[in-house]
């Protein structure tokens, strides 16, 4: 089972080169998935992932524990880089192109072997695509980053209650999406 608890390295205790290495192995796939889901292009997602790890590595000696764990900072950096990329490209951040790009990528074979799972994921994909960009982004950050509400607030630069409210509303809108109850 995936939990929101992380290793000591991701909690920022004695964050040296070895801790960074551990964080890399633990978070690499998540950061990449988050960037890919935001940007919709594998090349851009790889750039953002590399930039995020490089910036965190350069800043590892002056990490401010009050601003979050290394994992939170990593996803904050990745989010900023991805938003900068979106702004630079002047593309709609989470609109259909990204989702379409994702849709063109085959679903994960191991988990989607059963037809029911595939149907459900297609519904989730469609419901996510129908969400407002801000709602979609907070859900992606929450699930890919596996962040607690407090960490989510730190990554977004808002209060914890605000983050919880936004997350709860995003889930509610996902619930209210007509695609959520679509017949598969």
């Amino acid at each position: 089972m995936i939990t929101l608890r992380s290793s000591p390295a991701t909690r920022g205790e004695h964050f040296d080169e070895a801790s960074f290495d551990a964080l890399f192995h633990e978070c690499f796939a998540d950061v990449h998935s988050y960037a890919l889901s935001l940007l919709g292009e594998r090349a851009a997602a790889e750039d953002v992932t590399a930039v995020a790890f490089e910036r965190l590595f350069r800043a590892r000696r002056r990490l401010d524990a009050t601003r979050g764990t290394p994992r939170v900072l990593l996803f904050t950096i990745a989010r900023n880089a991805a938003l900068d990329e979106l702004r630079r490209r002047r593309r709609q951040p989470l609109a259909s192109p990204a989702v379409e790009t994702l849709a063109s990528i085959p679903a994960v074979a191991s988990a989607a072997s059963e037809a029911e799972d595939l149907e459900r994921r297609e519904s989730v994909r469609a419901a996510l695509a129908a969400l407002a960009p801000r709602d979609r982004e907070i859900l992606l950050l929450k699930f890919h980053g596996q962040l607690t509400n407090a960490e989510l607030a730190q990554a977004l630069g808002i209060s914890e209650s605000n983050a919880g409210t936004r997350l709860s509303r995003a889930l509610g809108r996902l619930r209210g999406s007509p695609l959520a109850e679509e017949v598969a």
Partner: protein
Amino acid sequence: MKVIRFPGADTDIAAAAIDAALNGETPGAEGIVLRELRADVRALTPPPDEAFERDLQLRVAEWSHASPSHAPRPRLPGLHRLGTLPARLAKLPRGGAAAGGVGAALVALLLVLLTVGPLRSSSTEFGASSASNSAKSPHISLPAAEGIQPPSEQSKRPATKRNEQQAANLPDVLATGGAASANPPASSNATAAPNRLQQIGASVALTTSSAGVQGAADDVARLAVQDGGYVESSHVQTRSAGGSEAGMTLSIPSAKLSATIAALGRIAPVRAVNQESQDITSSYDGARRQLADGEAVRRALLRALAAATTQGRIDSLGEQLAGDRAAISREREALRSVSHRAATSQIEVTITGTAAAVGSRKGLTLARGVHDAGEVLEAVAAVLLIMLAALVPLGLAAFAIAALNRAWRRRRREAALDS
């Protein structure tokens, strides 16, 4: 037909319960559905490319290898602390970092001032005896209205230039002093326009011990004679209980003014220097024109006398020539007077004797050291106060600008989600 259940479809999940549900701490169907949703969202994206992962892993290894942490650390603890200063500053809270930045700027400015200040002071010292008296005293009190007796024209003309300078600025005084030359009367004063003639005067206040006033006055008199001048007037008052003083008026060649003032600084510590100059070019030109006119009249009278044929005419011209001779003599005297005013300078020297003379020639004493140290500390405190007055608003403005810039950048980033 199958309905896909999404979390919150039946019940609203509170924000606080989301984390518990995702962690499996909440039993029931809602938690299971929420975890399934998370798994589905995570499964929407394919795994990263293995080649990219390997490449990035190699780059991470390169970063670690090239990291300064692998380089030998400096042995000196001070250097080590300096090297980690940016990291330690960055660990401060944002307000602390700003305060640290302002503090660092203050320290840097203070160091620059302390380094540059003495250099500037030492470069402006004059004389051998001024090493501890002239430039190192930042608060020299200037005597009020001490100076030369103004010539008669001085009160009538507003063009008088007054330069009051402390001992530290004496080189400037020296540069302007003694520049006027009377014969020919073309001034080369550094502060005057070319071909202008200036009358220069100065007053110098010296301080010495009460017992040393007489000796200092004798030295000043000898110096005046030595420099080609003389003592116009003097008075010396000595008191056994202290408070002796002497006043002297020296007349010296203007060309020697700077050298004389410098030499006075070697006799006793200079407390203040006051220099005045007055443009007398028009006076000189007027006197010269009057003399030229008188001489022209005289030449005309002589020509008329040579051509005179009657005794009455000859007598009349003779009387006119006699009167003209007297007028020319007066005009020559006036011209000489104006030239003399430019060629010589008056220096009013005041020697004050105190019971504990500041900067007497007895060398460094504990009391004098304490006094000088107090003055230096006072000056440093004043400089710090001025720096604070200037830097605190600047620091606050910089902090506000940085905060605004941060907010603006964040707003622009977030706008990418609105487009």
